[in-house]
Every structure is written in structure tokens, then in C-alpha cells.
């Protein structure tokens, strides 16, 4: 579903992503972990076409992001770490806007809005202005808008931040449900326990370089994901200092 080959992106002199390669098959959830500023968000933004890569190739469902960016965006849903949503719209106007862009029919969008807004307990606030939404409500609205067109690949940047426990549980359930139906999810997180329980694959990034990538069991070995993460990142720290 997603294949990244030798991705590179720099901002000025600083290499934000430096030769990242990974792949995710349909039905897989891949957790992307790393410290702040490691390159997680930049990688995700490159995949969904918000920023252009300096080098490397990205394929989503067989489509190249460089040659067919719109084709890629049609099968992808993206949610940023801080979902700033149009404050001049109401929740339902925003969902209609996204559904119009994806060409979702009236009947289908009504059914999906009902299902996902119900799951995230946002139905009664849909007619209110987004300017009055809390961070968590905006996050829920962004999630519903991401699900409204039934994407094949979901790119989620720290999706659990700001969600209440019920919504976080619903999100985990929906993520698994979508992957069981043949979709794929690539998400960044700092919640290592969640990643360990939920993910089929784990990618660990530091200073733009991928330190580890593979099935969760293989990456964490006999220890916990948290121990593996600290071990990997601390070892490279020590190596760097030497």
C-alpha cells in the first residue's frame, strides 16, 4: 500500500529526512516513533503531498506521488498533529466541503457522518461553528473528515493527542477495523504502549534516519518497545558523542 524509497528532505542546511525507506502492506498498521524533530511529520507530509521531497520515491497503492499527486491524494487521508480547521465553517459544513472534494454521494456521506460522528460523540455539535470547538473536538472532526471518503491509506500525525479515553478507544477500534478491511495506516505517536499493542510494524526514526523498521515483534525483540526505543536511540547518542 505504501512504499517509501530513499526519501530525502532538507530545510536549508538541515536534513529533516535523510534516506528513509519503508513499506506497508494492505491490512497493516505501522507506528512511526521518534523524538521531537526526528523527521516524523516531515515524512508524513511528504507522503501526502503537502511538502515536496528533495529526493527518493513514494508510491501509494501503486501510484507515484511525484507523477500522480492527485491520484495519491484520492486514496489517502491525512490528519496533522494540530488540526487547524476552517473556523469560518460549522462542523457539518467542513464535512460537506471535504466530501464534495472527494465526490462522496449525499446518501453515503450521510451514512458515514452518522456512523463516525456517533462513534466520536460529536453529532450534536456538528451544526456549531468550528471556532467554538475544543482541541479534542477539532481532532474528532478531522478524523471524521478523514474517514468520510473511505481512504485506502490513512496518515495520522499523533492522532491520540487531545482525544478523551472513549474517543481514543473508538479510534483504536476503527483503525483495526479499517485494516481488517484491507486498508493501511501509517501513524506517528509518542505513546509507545499504544504502538506496541496496536501496530503490526514499527519504524523508529532519529535525526532524519531510520534506525529500525520491521514487524513489531522483531523491532522490540524480547523486551518492551519502550526499552527497545531507548536502547536504540541512546546507543546512537553515545555513538555520536564518541
Amino acid at each position: 500500500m505504501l512504499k517509501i524509497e530513499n526519501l530525502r528532505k532538507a530545510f536549508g542546511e538541515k536534513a529533516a529526512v535523510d534516506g528513509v525507506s519503508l513499506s506497508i502492506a494492505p491490512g497493516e498498521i505501522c507506528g512511526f516513533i521518534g523524538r521531537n524533530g526526528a523527521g516524523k511529520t516531515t515524512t508524513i507530509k511528504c507522503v501526502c503531498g503537502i511538502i515536496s521531497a528533495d529526493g527518493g520515491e513514494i508510491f501509494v497503492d501503486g501510484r507515484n506521488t511525484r507523477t500522480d499527486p492527485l491520484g495519491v491524494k484520492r486514496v489517502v487521508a491525512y490528519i496533522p498533529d494540530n488540526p487547524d480547521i476552517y473556523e469560518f465553517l460549522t462542523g457539518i459544513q467542513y464535512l460537506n466541503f471535504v466530501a464534495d472534494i472527494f465526490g462522496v454521494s449525499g446518501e453515503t456521506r450521510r451514512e458515514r457522518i452518522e456512523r463516525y460522528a456517533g462513534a466520536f460523540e460529536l453529532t450534536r455539535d456538528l451544526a456549531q461553528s468550528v471556532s467554538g470547538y475544543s482541541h479534542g473536538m477539532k481532532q474528532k472532526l478531522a478524523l471524521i473528515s478523514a474517514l468520510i471518503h473511505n481512504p485506502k491509506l490513512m496518515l495520522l500525525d499523533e492522532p491520540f493527542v487531545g482525544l478523551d479515553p472513549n474517543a481514543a478507544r473508538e479510534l483504536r477500534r476503527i483503525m483495526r477495523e479499517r485494516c481488517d478491511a484491507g486498508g493501511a495506516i501509517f501513524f506517528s505517536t509518542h505513546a509507545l504502549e499504544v504502538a506496541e499493542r496496536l501496530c503490526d510494524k514499527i519504524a523508529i526514526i532519529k535525526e532524519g534516519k531510520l534506525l529500525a523498521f520491521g514487524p513489531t515483534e522483531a523491532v522490540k525483540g524480547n523486551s518492551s518497545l519502550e526499552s527497545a526505543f531507548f536502547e536504540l536511540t541512546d546507543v546512537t547518542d553515545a555513538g555520536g558523542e564518541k
Partner: protein
Amino acid sequence: MILTLLRLQLRWLFSSMLKSGGRKRGMRIFIIAALIYAAFALGGSFWGIFASMLRPYFDGGVGWLYFAMAGIMTFSLCFTGTVFAAGSALFGARDNDTLLSLPIPTAYILLSRAGALLVLECAYSALIFIPALLIWAASPFAGAPGAVFLVLCWLLTLLFALAFSCLVGWITAMAGGWTRHGKLIRLAVSLLLFGSFMYGGMYMSQAIQSLTENGAEIAASVSVYLLPFYHMGRAAAEGDPLSFAIYALIVCACFGGAIWLISRGYLKLITSDRRTVRTEYAAERHVRAGGAPKALFMKELRRCWYNPMVMLNTAFPSFLAAAGAVFVVVRRGDALRILSEITGLSSSVSAAAIIAAALIMLSAMNLMTASLVSLEGRQLWIVKSLPVGGSACLMAKIHAQLAVSAAPFALASAAASAALSLPASGAALVIAAPLAFNILAAFVGLRINLRFPMLDWTNEIQPVKQSISTVLTMIALSSIVVAAVAIYLPLSGGVSAETYLWICSAVFAAASLLFWRRVRARGAEDFAKVGDGVG
């Protein structure tokens, strides 16, 4: 602490203006040169006014009126320049939560935001005060005590205007909290102010002529009805410390009173819940399917309508055109009289040509697309992550400007044609020429905003009023009009004004076609570059 906060505000203001042009040194120099050019162009017109006023006033024994007029003009320009931004800047900034979470007294936050407006006023007022000061300093009427008081009075006048701007911003923000129709009230107050400015603008040329001819009568009125400026004028002209003290006292009382009044409920106002109207969601009523182009177009319109200040600033000429249409219909006699006075000056120019030219000049103030890319701001990720081409996003912005401007301008054209009984060819010109320029203005504004986007704003007024994109678009559009006039002057003997305007319309249309082809061919590439360097 206030200075730290003020520095933060100013650093943001200036860095965002310069950053929008990229890191290239040449582009920064170009931006600064453009700003200097704009300052000289505007300052030059004030230079002419003061040069014509100085000698009649001083020779007539009312030299203080020269400075009083400088004070009144400064007050008006500063008030006009900041009143629309004050509400958003003081009460609607996006970093309110961040600052409130720090151990900073709320009054300091208020003062720092007011201080940033004061710096803007400084820039506006320099256009008036520097010409006034230089012309007076070069005259035999200048004196050292007056110069000192003049500079002090200038600073006080800025505070005076700021007090009123802040008060109007506060009243409109309060109105938003009192009633469920807050947005409508804000729009009504804005339109009221806007109407006053328009009325003043209509009689500006008469007023300037009157200023030089009727110094004694004006002096008598100012000394009675505009007492603060009377004392300001006396302080500067005669170096009168008592008048200065009275002026300073009045200004400090107004400014102190305004800040005291606003700071009392400041915290409550900026943290109040804006969800005043609760609408029940009903799927059958709210879920509506439509196409992508319509969705993008409606998004742009809703963005402008959401903030009345943005709507007023972006659709300024459209309001003027609509008001002009009403004026021509209701006051047909006055319209005919004004027109006959103008045509009387130059019998070779027809009424249709004059109206078409006037509407083109009005269109040159149409700056809506100059901020529509910037207004995407932190929400740029939405359109960039959706399967919609950059050219479609950009064309939606063009269509939004045309939707807002085309109808009022068409109305104004039709009203003028009907009221003045223009022949068919004249009516066609009055409709076609402004329309062609409006389309060109939309493309020029968009092109400049793509090159100079301001995405890190903290309230919507900043990209609309304080961005380099808006200034450059204003300069570009007015330069096109000036160039068109300059080219016509040597040709006026052989080519009629109507024929020339048809040629101009064709040129505008051809240029728009080239811009349109650029958007179609490279719109995706141009749009992709916006915000691409931000990680």
C-alpha cells in the same frame, strides 16, 4: 515586561512582512524600495496640501490652524488606518491563550497590542507630519520652541487616535457578546464608519480648496468645535506651554480612560465563548452534496463573510460601487451636475469615458485576491492534502473576487448608463472596461500573493491590511492606471478617449488571458511552493 511583549509584536509584524518575500536579499531590497515608493507617493500629495496652506494661514494671523489641520489629518488617517484592525488585534489574536498562560498581567497584554497599533500609526502619520514639519521648518515662521512642541503633539495625536480606535474595537467586540447577531452589529458599525469615510472622501477636493480660501472661518470653527486641535495648533505655532498642557491633558484623559475602560473586562472579553447561537444538527437539512469547484468557491466566500472586517477591507471598492449606483439613481441631478462640470473642463472626453475611467480607478482598489492565499494560514494543509489541483484552488479565489466585485460594478455601470441616458456604445464601454480591469486586478493580486504569502498571522486583518502582498498589489494596480493615463496624454489629440478605453480593455483582457493560462498550466506548481519550506 511591556517592552518585551511589544518587541514580540513588532518582531512578528516586520519579520512576517520581510519573510514573505523569501530569504533573498534582492527581494528584501525590492520590498523596502516598494514601501519607500508608496510612502513618497502618498506623502507627496500631503506635501502639496501643506505647501498651499502655509502662507495664507500665517499671513492671515491664524498660523496655528496649519498645525491644527496637520493634527486633524493625522488623527483621521491614523483612526481610519487602525480602527478596522483594532478589534481583531486587541481581542481576537490567536496567541491570547499562550500569553494568558504566562505570568503576565492582562493590562500588559492589552498595552502591548495597543503599542503595536501605535507603531502602525507612526508609519501612517509620518506621511502627514514629515511634509508639514519640513515645509514649516523651511519657512520664516519656524521657531525652536514650536518645533519641540510639534514633535510632542505629534506623539500625543497618535495616542488620541489610538484611544478612539480601541474604543470602537471594544464596542464592536462587546456587541458580539451581548447579542446573537454580533456579527451583523460589527458589520453595521463598520459600514457606518465606512460611510462616514466615504462621505468625507467625496468632499475632500472641495474641502482642500476651502481650507486655503477660508482660513478665518475655519479657524473660528476649529477653535470652538475642535478645541483639542486648536490648543495643539497654538502649542506648535506659538510655542505656548499652556495650550500644550491643555492638549496633553485632554489626550491623556481620553487614552487613559479608554485603556481603563477596556482593561476592566479585557480578560472576560478575550476568553468568552463565542458560541452564542446553538443550532441543532439535522442530517436531512445539513448534509448536502455538491461539486468540488462549488465547494472551493463557497469556502472562499464564507471565509470573507465570516469576518466583517475582512469583508469590508477586501470588498471596499464593491461597496463604493454599490453606493455610487444608488447615488446616481437617487441623486440623478447631482450626478449630472458633477459630470457636466468634469466634461466642461475637457469637452473632448465623453461622459461614458469618464464613468468607465472612474470605475477602473475604483477597481484598482480591489485587493481581495491579494490576501486570499495568505488567509489559508495554518489551514493550508487542508487544501494541500485534498485531491484538488492547485489551479482549481487558485481559480476559486479569482471567482470569489469576481463574485464580490462583478455584481456591484455591473450595477454601478447599468445605473450610470440608465441615469445618464448613455448611447449603446457608451453603455457597453462603461460595462466592459471596468469588468476587464476587475478580472486583471484579481489575477494580479493572486499572482503577487502567491509570491509573497503571509501564513503566520495571528488575526485575519494582518494579511489583509498589513502584508507586503497587499501593498505591492496596490502599487501594481495603481501603476497600471497611471501608465494607461500617461500613454494616453500624447495620443489624446488623435485618439478619442472612448476608443482608447476600448483598446485598454482589450489589453486588460489579453493580460488576464495570459494570467489565466499561467494558472491553468502552472497553478499546481505555484500553489505547491506556498509554505513548502516550512517543516
